């Protein structure tokens, strides 16, 4: 079946391969967000202990965020190699740090002082207070950051194809712009799946946040 230049038969014939590329895409995204979260949590806790470091941390992660993705890949290639998952992941992780660190720090700062005092009064140790009071109360702001970082990362993973790796960018560029007849079909399939993945991930994270913070449901409506 054809709709203008779009050939759905090509999509059906290549469904297996397209599925594999989508799974690879999800895998690259999940790894980047996971590692980015661990590093950002560490940075945020460091900033909590030494507030003076907030400016420099935002400066450095902001600088990383400003470097174009293709250039960041290129800067890493001599160190980590061209067709290397490591090159892609280092770049992807470094783009998540600004948003995640900022939102974790701001989320923790937004915890009402009364709640912290009450927890201390009840005999919570600082670690217990962090795990049971501060992080849960900061969760909506933290998840808001994870959502933005995830949607951005899903888009950036397409660039892995430029290094000869898979993911949906392989449909967009490697097949799409190189092989005439079904080029537009492949490129559009890649774009539609990438946008779809981003939207699904966004909604799923929102659902997770609502499930984890039942007390906030009235406010987020």
């Amino acid at each position, binding site marked *: 079946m054809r709709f203008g230049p779009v050939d759905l038969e090509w999509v059906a014939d290549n469904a297996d391969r397209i599925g594999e590329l989508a799974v690879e895409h999800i895998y690259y995204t999940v790894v980047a967000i996971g590692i980015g979260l661990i590093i950002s949590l560490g940075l945020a806790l460091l900033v909590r202990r030494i507030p003076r470091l907030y400016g420099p941390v935002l400066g450095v992660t902001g600088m990383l965020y*400003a470097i174009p*993705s*293709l*250039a960041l890949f*290129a*800067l890493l290639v001599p160190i980590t190699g061209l067709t290397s998952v490591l090159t892609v992941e280092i770049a992807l992780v470094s783009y998540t740090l600004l948003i995640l660190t900022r939102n974790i720090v701001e989320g923790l700062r937004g915890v009402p002082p009364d709640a912290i005092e009450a927890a201390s009064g009840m005999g919570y140790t600082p670690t217990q207070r962090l795990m049971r009071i501060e992080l849960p109360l900061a969760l909506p702001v933290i998840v808001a950051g994870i959502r933005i970082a995830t949607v951005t990362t899903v888009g950036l993973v397409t660039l892995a194809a430029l290094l000869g790796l898979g993911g949906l960018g392989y449909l*967009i560029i490697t097949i799409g712009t190189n092989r005439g007849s079904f080029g537009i079909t492949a*490129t559009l399939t890649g*774009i539609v799946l990438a946008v779809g993945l981003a*939207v699904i991930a966004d909604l799923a994270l929102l659902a997770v946040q609502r499930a984890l913070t039942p007390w906030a449901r009235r406010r987020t409506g």
Partner: protein
Amino acid sequence: MDFIGEVAAWFADPTTWSGRNGIPSRLLEHLWISAVGLGMGAAIGLPLGLAIGHTGRGSLLVVSIANIGRAVPSLGLMGLAFLLLLPLGLGVGPFPAIVALTALAIPPIIVNTYAGLRGVDRELIEAARGMGMRASQVIWRLEVPVALPVILAGIRTSAVQVVATATLAGVIGGGTLGELIIIGFNTGDQVRVFGAALVVAALSIVTELGFAALQHAMASPGLRGRPIPPPEDPGQVAHAAGEV
């Protein structure tokens, strides 16, 4: 010789600075393609943002644009523009990049212009109307000056994204500094890849700082000294519009 030394030697080599694939020629191409894309994005995004922000109608549209704008991969925009312009004979050269960059520049400009205008104190607008200002006067004498820092923040976000993404034009043979990186990838010339990437990174940081300075300088004198608002997050805008 160590790698850093080779990169330094590449920068010192006169051939790096001359010809079609010299840094000046590609840098100039990068800048004009970015400027046209940003200019066209502003020409489309600003009037739409002003109209939606002033009337308050179409906020759902803004939220959708903000979310989809973030989710569409810029590489996809570039590839699609290339494929759509190819049958028209415009696939080779700067045209696909300009179309893709225009599309990329529009969402942050619309979203911030909208958010800036919606953020203007309702009482100020009532007062302006009470003084007998017409709608156009309310927009140009009150809403735009008050919202200017936020509007400029949107233009800054777009500018930084456009200059960064112009690099991807190299992937579809559209020139720019990205072409130097891609040539380096294809010839296995890591020194050229690294050197060109350094130029791109420097250009991006200069763009970011330059537009931050512009934003500061252009703010209305009455608002000067206030902190510059950071670029708007679509998530926050969505929240403010009550859609999420």
